[in-house]
C-alpha cells in the first residue's frame, strides 16, 4: 500500500492524485430518507483502472451513475477534464450491470448504437462496430440478437458499445457478475489487454476482492451505508508476469488478505 495521496477533510478520507481526469467533490446522495453516500472526495487518475469495492448496498452503483451523470447528486459536484458536468457527456461511457442491450437489435446495431445516436452514417458506424466486436472476441456474431448470446457474451456487447464511442472514461458496473468463474478469469485478462490497448481511464465496480486486486491500479474501499471512503489500496502488481503467476504471487495474496481484513469488520 503506497502512493495513495490521502488526506482528511472534516474527518473523511479524501483521495487526490496528479493528472486527475475525473474529480468527485464532496458528493452526497439521499434517496428520500435513505442516505446512500456521504462526503465522497475522490480523484481518478488518467489512464488508470480504479476499482470501487464495498459491501452490497454501500452505494457503488449510485456513485458510478452520479459520475456518469445518470443520477443527480444531492450535494457536491463532478468534474471531468476540469469542467463541472451535470449530465451524461461524450467523454464518459457506461457499461451496465444488466447489459442494457436492445433485444430487437442485432449485435452490430447494439454496438453501433452510441454512434447511431450521434448521427454517424451507417457505413462508418458499422465499420467501427465491427472492429470492436472483433476486439471483444465476438467476430462472427454481428447479426445475432442478444437472446441468442450467453450472459458473458452479452456483457461483451455492452463493453464493445462503450468502446465504440471512443470515450476517455469507461464506467463499468460489475461487468462480470453474470459470468462463471472460468470465464470470469478469462474476461479479466481480456479487460487488462483492452486497458493496455485502449489507453483509457477505467472506473470499475465489483464485489470480488480477487478481481479488484487482479485488475486494478487503485482500489477504493467504501464503507456500508452511508457509503464513505474507508480505505485506499494500490495493489502494485507486476502485470508482465503470466496470469497464473500473478495469482500465486505473495504480494497479490497479501493484498487480497489485507482487503479482506478491512471488509471483514463490516461483515460481522
Amino acid at each position, binding site marked *: 500500500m503506497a502512493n495513495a495521496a490521502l488526506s482528511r477533510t472534516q474527518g473523511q478520507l479524501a483521495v487526490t492524485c496528479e493528472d486527475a481526469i475525473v474529480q468527485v467533490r464532496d458528493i452526497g446522495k439521499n434517496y428520500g430518507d435513505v442516505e446512500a453516500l456521504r462526503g465522497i472526495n475522490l480523484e481518478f487518475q488518467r489512464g488508470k483502472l480504479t476499482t470501487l469495492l464495498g459491501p452490497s448496498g454501500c452505494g457503488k452503483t449510485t456513485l458510478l451513475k452520479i459520475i456518469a451523470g445518470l443520477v443527480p447528486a444531492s450535494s457536491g459536484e463532478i468534474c471531468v477534464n476540469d469542467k463541472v458536468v451535470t*449530465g*451524461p457527456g*461524450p467523454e464518459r461511457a457506461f457499461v451496465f450491470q444488466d447489459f*442494457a442491450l*436492445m433485444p430487437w437489435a442485432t449485435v452490430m446495431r447494439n454496438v453501433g448504437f*452510441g454512434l447511431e445516436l450521434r448521427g454517424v452514417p451507417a457505413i462508418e458506424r458499422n465499420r467501427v462496430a465491427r472492429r470492436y466486436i472483433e476486439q471483444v472476441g465476438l467476430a462472427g456474431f454481428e447479426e445475432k*440478437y442478444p437472446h441468442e448470446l450467453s450472459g458473458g457474451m452479452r456483457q461483451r456487447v455492452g463493453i464493445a458499445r462503450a468502446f465504440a464511442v471512443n470515450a476517455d472514461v469507461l464506467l463499468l458496473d460489475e461487468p462480470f457478475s453474470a459470468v462463471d468463474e472460468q470465464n470470469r478469469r478469462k474476461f479479466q485478462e481480456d479487460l487488462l489487454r483492452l486497458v493496455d490497448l485502449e489507453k483509457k481511464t477505467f472506473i470499475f465496480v465489483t464485489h470480488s476482492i480477487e478481481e479488484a486486486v487482479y485488475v486494478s491500479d487503485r482500489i477504493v474501499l467504501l464503507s456500508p451505508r452511508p457509503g464513505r471512503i474507508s480505505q485506499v489500496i494500490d495493489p502494485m502488481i507486476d502485470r508482465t508476469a503470466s496470469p497464473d503467476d500473478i495469482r500465486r504471487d505473495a504480494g497479490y495474496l497479501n493484498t487480497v488478505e489485507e482487503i479482506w481484513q478491512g471488509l471483514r469488520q463490516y461483515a460481522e
Partner: protein
Amino acid sequence: MPSSPGRARSRMQAIVSHTKLNDAAGALKAPPTPGQALQSFAENRRSFWIILSLAVLFAAWEIAGLVPISFAFPKFSETVLAFVEMVADGTMIYAYFLTLQPLVLGVLISAVVGIGLGIAMGLSNKIEWLLAPVFIVLQAAPMAALVPLVTFIYGIGLTAKTLAVVMLALPVIVLNSYKAVRHVNPSLVDMCRSFQGTRKQQIFKIIIPDASPVLFAGLRLGIAAGFIGVMLAELLITPTGIGDLITYHRSVANYGHMYASVASIIAVSTLTLAGLQYFETNVLRPEKRRK
C-alpha cells in the same frame, strides 16, 4: 423427463390409428420410429394442430346437429351449405361491405387516437393525471348499455355505429399503450441517456420499440372489442350488415343461415387477429422470428 417421450409416442400412434392420416405411411419410411417422426412433424407444424382441433370441433358440431341438441341447432354441413349459398347470391358479401365500414373506420380511429393518447399518458405525468381516470372509468363501464344512447345523439347512421366501435375499442387501446410505455425497461432508457440520446431519439429508438409487444397486445384486444362494438351496433341500433343477416334469418327460422353468419364473423375476427400477430412477429420484431 425420461419417461414422457415414450408416452407421448403411444399417444401419437393412437391419433394415427383414429384419424388414419396418410402422413403416417410417409413417416414409416424415415429412419426414426414412426411415432417420433410424426411427433417432430406435429411439433414443427403448428397448422397440423390447428387443423386437427378444427376437425374435432366441426365433427362435434355435426354430431350435435344430428342428435339434435335443439331444433334451432343446425348441422355443420347445413351451415356450410348455407354459407356457400349466401356467398354465391352476394348477400354475405354485401353484408360485409356494410359491416366493415364502421368497423374499419372505428378501429382505425381508435388505433391512431388510442396509441397516441396512451403513449402521451405514459410519457407525461400531467397528461396521465388528466386522462387516466377517464379511460379507467370508460373501460370499467358496461359499454353495451351505452350503445343505445348513441342513437339518441347520432341517429342510426354510420356515425353512430362507428362511435359504438370506438367506445369499445378506444379505452382498451389507450390503457394498454399507457401501460406499455410505463413498463419500458428503465435501464435501456438510462443507456440511451448515457450516450446523449435526445428525448426524441429516446422515444422513437427505445421507448416505442420496447413497448411495441404490449402496444400490439393492446391493439389486438382493441380490435376484438371493436368486433363486439360493431355487432352490438348492428343488433341494437339498426339491423344492417351481418347483424341484419343474423336477426333476419333467426326471425324466419333459417337456422343454417343464421349460424353461417355468426360463424363467419367469428372467423373474420379470428383471422384478423392472427394476421396482426403474424405481422408483428414477422415485420416488427425480427428477433422473434428465429425461435
